[in-house]
């Protein structure tokens, strides 16, 4: 059976919002990183849904790139977090206050 494209949109919107709120509210860097992943995955849902709805492959191509970018982001991000952890022994953003923020 066919699921209307609006349902996918609603799902992705919800996932995106959860991610957005997570970035803004949570203080643990790992959780923030995960929230950002949620935002990117919401994007992927959108692209796949639109791609099938529009009968156009470009959306699915984009998903592959988005996945790659997300993976690279996590790799770089974790490296930075480790570097910072060595200084602060903490992964809570509230503890990083050398700069004025």
């Amino acid at each position: 059976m066919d699921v209307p494209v609006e349902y996918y949109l609603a799902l992705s919107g919800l996932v995106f919002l959860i991610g957005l709120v997570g970035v803004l509210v949570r203080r643990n860097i790992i959780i923030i990183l995960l929230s950002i992943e949620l935002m990117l995955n919401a994007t992927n849902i959108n692209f796949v849904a639109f791609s099938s709805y529009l009968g156009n492959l470009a959306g699915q191509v984009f998903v592959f790139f988005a996945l790659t970018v997300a993976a690279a982001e996590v790799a770089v991000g974790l490296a930075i977090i480790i570097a910072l952890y060595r200084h602060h022994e903490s992964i809570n953003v509230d503890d990083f206050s050398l700069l004025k923020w």
Partner: protein
Amino acid sequence: MMTFDLTLTGSDLLLLAPEIFLTIWMCVVLIVDFSVKNIDHENLAYLSIGGILTTLVNVIWFDYIGVHGSLFKDMYVLDGVAIFFKIIILIATLLVLLISIDYVKKFKYFKGEYYFLVMMSALGMMFMASAQDLLSVFVTLEFSTFGFYVLVAYLREDARSSEAGLKFFILGVFAAGLLAYGISLVYGETGTLVFSEMTSTPGSYGLAIGFILIFAALGFKIGAVPFHSWIPDTYQGAPTPVTAFLSIAPKGAALAILIRMFFVALASFKPMWVLLFVVASIASMTYGNIVAIAQTNIKRLLAYSGIAQIGNVMIGMAAGTKRGSDAILFYLLTYLFANLGAFAVVIGVSNFIKSDEIEDYNGLNRRSPFLAAAMLLFLLSLAGVPPLAGFIGKLYIFVAAMEQELYTLLIVGLINIVISMYYYLIVVKKMYINEPTDPTSITVSAPLKTAVYIGIAGTLLLGIYPKPFIDWAVSATLMFSNLVAPTAAAPVLSPLVGG
């Protein structure tokens, strides 16, 4: 039908020659660093500079003989605008490499990789300048930013650098999330990712939200208010050459995308997005300048002044005309020399006195008349004092705004010149009027001196003989002359003139 075909010939790939060369060259630098034992890292720097110079010559040659075209189903385009921005990015990279040489000596580890990463970011930004499709916008933007994430956090021993890196990273990926989601909405509404195919799309809420999200993400990159919060911290914490790089090159590349997106894809919605830029411009100029007054650290001061400068650039976006785009291009050129020059001086001073506090610039004129005079020129150019480059840039921007009747923007812009003058003058005062606490004279290394001289030459040349550069900007944006027709000045001004 779901089909996706791609054809490529050798002559098509010629368009990519500068990028391909740079890719190979940066790998060469990395390999040399690994394989040659005990290599002097200064030589690696010169190797990188050679590569960038060759690429620059290549791009300029392409511009000269007029190599234009597009690749990969219009995802990659080489036109006047792309070439202009590539040249800006390459000059910025060149200057950044020059001012890095002394700074890199302070690093404990990974000296060679630094040059690799700088070139990698430059490569990403060169692709950004050519992006004419939302997929390539996304990929190239992330590509160039990855390099910067690492560069900002490069000083592992310095907690501030790591912290700046983290802040930059979180907001950067957050912006990437917004960008991707915005792109997905635009894709859903228009069924395409290519800018030029979007021109005839009817407006809708999905499209509007999508573009606002994309605008926000690019706003992060150029540091426009209200997306500026990472700028001061990142600028302060990052290694100063990286700050210098960040302050111009990504802004230029993101502006290339903004110009293409709004002037091409959204040309028919101009009445709607003009307001967006007017508000962002006023907010950036005013906020940047007012907060800059209170700064005690020169890097933070330049960070806030950069926010204000972007506000000025967005006046040109708000004008939304051919002249507006000319003005943006020329303004960026003037900003490139003045801003990188100022950072070169900051590095020269901080290499010697190990401080970026404005207090420590007291009596700089006594300690190094050369650096003080150079800084004076750069700050005055940033403030827009004639006969320096910045004045012509601002004049051009204001003319474009006036042509479009953006009086509010114009007045705010002019008030901001006065405000900005105030904090630039405070620095000038410290350098020239105050007496130094420590009168030892400051020595400047040859590469740094070269960078400062290039900055001075650019600032003076663009101010005194701007004609060829303006002509160049005008011809680079020829593609916009039919897309955004400037409204004739006379009828609009008629309420004031007529009668």
